[in-house]
């Protein structure tokens, strides 16, 4: 059973329909990258999961319990990190975590040990007695993670945790999320594809109010493998000899040559690399390099949102 199940979710703001029948399943112990353009509806989806927004239609189930709008029962399973977490500026991190712990119903000793453990994890230990009002954005983001992990949630939802941070801050946040992976399931929205490739094992691309793409990274790569090949030859002569081979003059094959490198795209599903290898052996050419083109996440992303 998945930690999070979303069925046929619809949501509109005025005339703008943001979600149009979104279906999504998040299995346990995965880091789930939730990708989409700005305004695609990532934050809206997350707020519906948290019961902060009311869906027009559809249902959300967290750990087998249905989410009720305006209620907060299912939130005890969830830790949430908003895109820009806001705190009470007059408190220090320890006081804030104490407040959160009391609300979540933890005991005094639990709160104390968990707070210290988490502040250590997010690297705010030496700042634990400083007022949050003076914190930088990165520090607030880290405190946000500590706050979200306080009640040991089964599901951690992070809304663009890295978008506003510098490269070092981003790396730190990603490392913290990776460290939390064993204990919880993480859903993590972003439009920074490099972050997704770094830590996520599953991704879903939200586009046009639905999931345009969903699965594990390797599955998706496999499914969207372009039938493209790169061949590098020892000389330009060999390259042009290969390029002008009679067998390749077919409408379903497109070729492009740049110096001694030739790129081949096969649009016909029946053809594959063997066909090209046959052509090469007929011409008695041995290429320096023969490689299958891997789709990058970026190219996939651009492809699905087009």
């Amino acid at each position, binding site marked *: 059973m998945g930690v999070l199940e979303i069925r046929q979710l619809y949501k509109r703001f005025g005339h703008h329909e943001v979600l149009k029948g979104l279906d999504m399943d998040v299995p346990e112990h995965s880091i789930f990258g939730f990708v989409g353009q700005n305004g695609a509806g990532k934050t809206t989806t997350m*707020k519906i999961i*948290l019961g*902060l*927004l*009311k869906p027009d239609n559809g249902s959300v189930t967290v750990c087998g319990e249905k989410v009720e709008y*305006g*209620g*907060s*029962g299912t*939130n*005890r399973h*969830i*830790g*949430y990190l*908003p895109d*820009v*977490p*806001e*705190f*009470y500026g*007059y*408190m220090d991190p320890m*006081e804030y975590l104490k*407040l*959160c712990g*009391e*609300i*979540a*119903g933890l005991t005094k000793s639990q709160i104390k040990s968990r707070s210290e453990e988490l502040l250590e994890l997010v690297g705010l230990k030496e700042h634990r007695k400083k007022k949050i009002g003076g914190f930088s954005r990165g520090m607030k983001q880290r405190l*946000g993670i500590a*706050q979200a992990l*306080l*009640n040991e949630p089964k599901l951690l939802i992070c809304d663009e945790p890295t978008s506003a941070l510098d490269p070092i801050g981003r790396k730190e946040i990603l490392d913290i999320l990776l460290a939390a992976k064993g204990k919880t399931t993480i859903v993590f929205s972003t439009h920074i594809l490099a972050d997704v490739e770094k830590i996520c094992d599953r991704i879903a691309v939200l586009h046009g109010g639905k999931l345009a793409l969903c699965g594990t990274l390797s599955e998706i790569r496999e499914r969207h493998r372009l039938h493209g090949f790169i061949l590098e030859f020892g000389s330009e002569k060999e390259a042009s000899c290969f390029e002008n081979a009679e067998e390749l003059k077919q409408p379903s094959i497109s070729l492009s040559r740049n110096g001694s490198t030739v790129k081949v795209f096969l649009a016909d599903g029946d053809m594959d690399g063997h066909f090209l290898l046959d052509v090469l052996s007929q011409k008695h050419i041995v290429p320096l390099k023969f490689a299958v083109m891997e789709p990058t996440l970026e190219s996939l992303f651009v492809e699905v949102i087009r």
Partner: protein
Amino acid sequence: MTGYLAFLKKEFFEYTKTFKLFIMLMVFAVFGITNPLTAKLLPEILGSLIPDSVVITLPEPTAYDAWTQFFKNATQIGLLVMVILFSSVLSSELSKGTLINLLTKGLSRTAVILSKYTCMVLLWTTSIALCFGLTYGYTVYLFPKDETSNLLFSVFCLWLFGLFLMAALLFSATLTRSSYGCLLVTGIVVVICMILNIIPAVHRYNPISLSTDNMGLIMNSIKASALYSTIVITCLLSLIFVSLSIVVFRKKQI
């Protein structure tokens, strides 16, 4: 319940740390001290300002003057300061998004409203008690002979009106997103009460009577029993406002 207590503690902490508690207590303490003093000294101040050639006789100040000052200051400036201080009770948390973290920790929205109301009521009670205590002490000291009637009951009425006003304020806060919107709606509620007060038949049931009839009670020109129905109505209206706040806030998209 744990959420309610935890959030109530946070509210007190906030009022202390942001000096709102301090401001409230200061304002009401200053009133408490100056009410009887102004009553005592006003004739002398006026006397010293008027040239000797003009002869006017000012009546000797009494305890009634001190209590007139008390009810005027507490109802006009005191309640105004309080409403302004409390106007951002929800809007600041909603616009900044500080509440989101706590709601997603499992804090119920009902607990938010109830603890906010509890905190406002306790602050108002402390402030008015402080102001009353100081005024009472000084009045007894400065005007030892004067007798007043229904004094505690009269202050109770004013206190109850404060409760009503804060329930209206909280309801306004759930309806609007900004603190100005909250002030506006609260203002409209008060103005409606004032306009309705023009109709004599409504006067007995209008919550605002609790803040206008205080001197009448003290001088015994208004019987305490005349306000019983108003008290019942005010309690009911406050309860309705708080309940509506919960209903509206539970449905609010955050």
